[in-house]
């Protein structure tokens, strides 16, 4: 129980150097809080050897860090590093006065204990023990490490950081250790590389974008044309135009009645005549013009004045049908001796 706990504590800083340091500093902070109580009494003492205290703490931290960083090397049975570290810690402990330093000493002990436990576990092996550091060294030589700066680097204890491996180092190792693996040779495609995975779906996005833009282009112009050529609008305009003519003729000579036939018939065009009759019927329907028979029982037309409109609306409506054929049209033109039209054809049609 106790041992496993020690192992757990030790694991924190060993994870990496920086987290270990942070932990140590955190510990300092707590201890500082404790120290603040007797601070008044020990004030002078503290100030005298403030530098010494700092030095001890920094030395402890260095020691802990070096143990954490070089853990695997310290485990190697070929050296006495662990003993050296413990001796160093013993020397430091002589000057330890405050809880802060004692805590650091305890922390170092936790780290050292775990190392000791690991070292002891190596004793269980019968015969030769396996040393990963030596293994790594042998492997480096095997892979053809170029050891130019080996000697200068020796003091670092850490395996030589300098020197470089040839490019095919790992291929070389793989080739020589192939015999250990009875791996099934995986087949590969003869004609170049070919990925077994389906390609990512890409086209869909483009397709969706293209369609709506095309349709919008197609719809726009047709809509505009329809607006201009709308039959409803053209009829309304023509009706209004005819009303304008009727009013102006009536104003020119209000007393004499205007013959219906003379008004609508175009002597040069039968179809224009029919159109005029059609458009004039709207004026009658809307109560803007009226039709009556004169003394000779011939139809006459006149615009309806503003005041008259309501009276006309209340009176009973009458309907009549006018028929017109090219033959009748010619007879009318001859009988009434119509030479020119009262309603000129609309300008747009002349164009």
């Amino acid at each position: 129980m106790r041992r496993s706990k020690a192992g757990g504590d030790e694991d924190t800083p060993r994870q990496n150097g920086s987290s270990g340091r942070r932990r140590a500093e955190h510990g300092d902070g707590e201890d500082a809080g404790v120290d603040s109580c007797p601070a008044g009494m020990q004030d002078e003492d503290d100030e005298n050897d403030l530098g010494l205290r700092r030095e001890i703490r920094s030395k402890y931290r260095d020691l802990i860090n070096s143990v954490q960083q070089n853990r695997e090397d310290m485990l190697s049975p070929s050296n006495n590093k662990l003993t050296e570290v413990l001796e160093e810690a013993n020397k430091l402990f002589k000057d330890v006065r405050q809880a802060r330093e004692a805590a650091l000493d305890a922390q170092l002990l936790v780290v050292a204990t775990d190392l000791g436990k690991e070292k002891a576990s190596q004793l269980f092996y019968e015969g030769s023990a396996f040393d990963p550091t030596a293994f790594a060294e042998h492997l480096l030589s095997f892979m053809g490490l170029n050891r130019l700066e080996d000697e200068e680097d020796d003091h670092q204890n850490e395996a030589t950081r300098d020197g470089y491996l040839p490019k095919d180092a790992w291929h070389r190792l793989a080739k020589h250790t192939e015999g250990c693996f009875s791996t099934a040779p995986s087949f590969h495609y003869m004609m170049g590389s070919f990925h077994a995975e389906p390609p990512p779906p890409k086209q869909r996005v483009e397709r969706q974008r293209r369609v709506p833009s095309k349709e919008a282009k197609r719809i726009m112009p047709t809509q505009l044309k329809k607006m201009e050529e709308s039959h409803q609008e053209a009829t309304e305009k023509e009706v209004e135009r005819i009303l304008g003519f009727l009013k102006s003729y009536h104003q020119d000579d209000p007393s004499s009645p205007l013959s219906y036939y003379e008004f609508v018939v175009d002597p040069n065009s039968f179809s224009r005549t029919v159109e005029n009759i059609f458009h004039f019927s709207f004026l009658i329907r809307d109560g803007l013009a009226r039709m009556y028979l004169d003394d000779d029982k011939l139809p006459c037309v006149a615009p309806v004045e503003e005041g008259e409109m309501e009276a006309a609306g209340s009176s009973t409506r009458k309907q009549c049908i006018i028929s017109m054929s090219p033959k009748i049209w010619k007879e009318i033109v001859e009988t009434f001796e119509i030479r020119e039209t009262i309603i000129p054809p609309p300008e747009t049609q002349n164009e």
Partner: protein
Amino acid sequence: MSQRKRLSNTQSSSQNKRQSSSSVTQEEDEDATFTQPSTSQVQRGLEKLTPAQVDQKTAEVVQYFLMKDQKKIPVRRADLVKYVVKDYRTIYPEIIKRAARTFEQVFGLKLVEIDPKHHMYILVNNLETATSRAAPVECPTNPKMGLLFVILSVIFMKGGTVKENLIWNTLKKLRVDPGQKHEEFGDVKKVVTDEFVRQKYLEYLRIPHTEPVEYEFRWGPRADAEVSKARILEFMGKLHEQDPRSWTQQYREAHATQNSS
């Protein structure tokens, strides 16, 4: 335990036949999505199909295995049934038996079920490795196998279980820093803790009751099936210029497992 499971899966009518059935039926018994058909069911299924149909389906299974083996990811039985066997699931034991035979006789490979609980299969070279080295075709070497060799060796030599830090430190000495991008392996940490683990070469397990979290490495089932401990030890001996027998414990283990397999 497997006996009990098997009994619960089968219908009482087919029980007698099942117990005398071949090892193939025993191999895979428990699966959430797929219940192993009984021998009588297989028999009935085979009667409905032409031999050509069964051969065709077997060929598809063989191809599926070969494709999957390119990445060395084990094949799960559930996937195999879902994507390839499909309607032929009633004769699944027969198909897998035939596929295994094809691998052995045509390809020189062995179909191994590495995980009897989750029904995962891998392919292993069945030919004597020493002779296959002399093959005229030069196979391109995969440098990752070198990396894997180092890790497996350390685990084996250290008695089967190793804290991850020992692995990282050893690799660092070999100029492979798990925190840095390696020109050969890319993201080393991912290769080791993800790729090798998915290929079942390694197991990367959380050590219980550690704060902060710590992991340890072990051999995965594929390594057990594929890698010869005796040969690792042999290589170690050459490397250290030492008799492999001087590592008494490892030597005993390597030769014990070799005899059994």
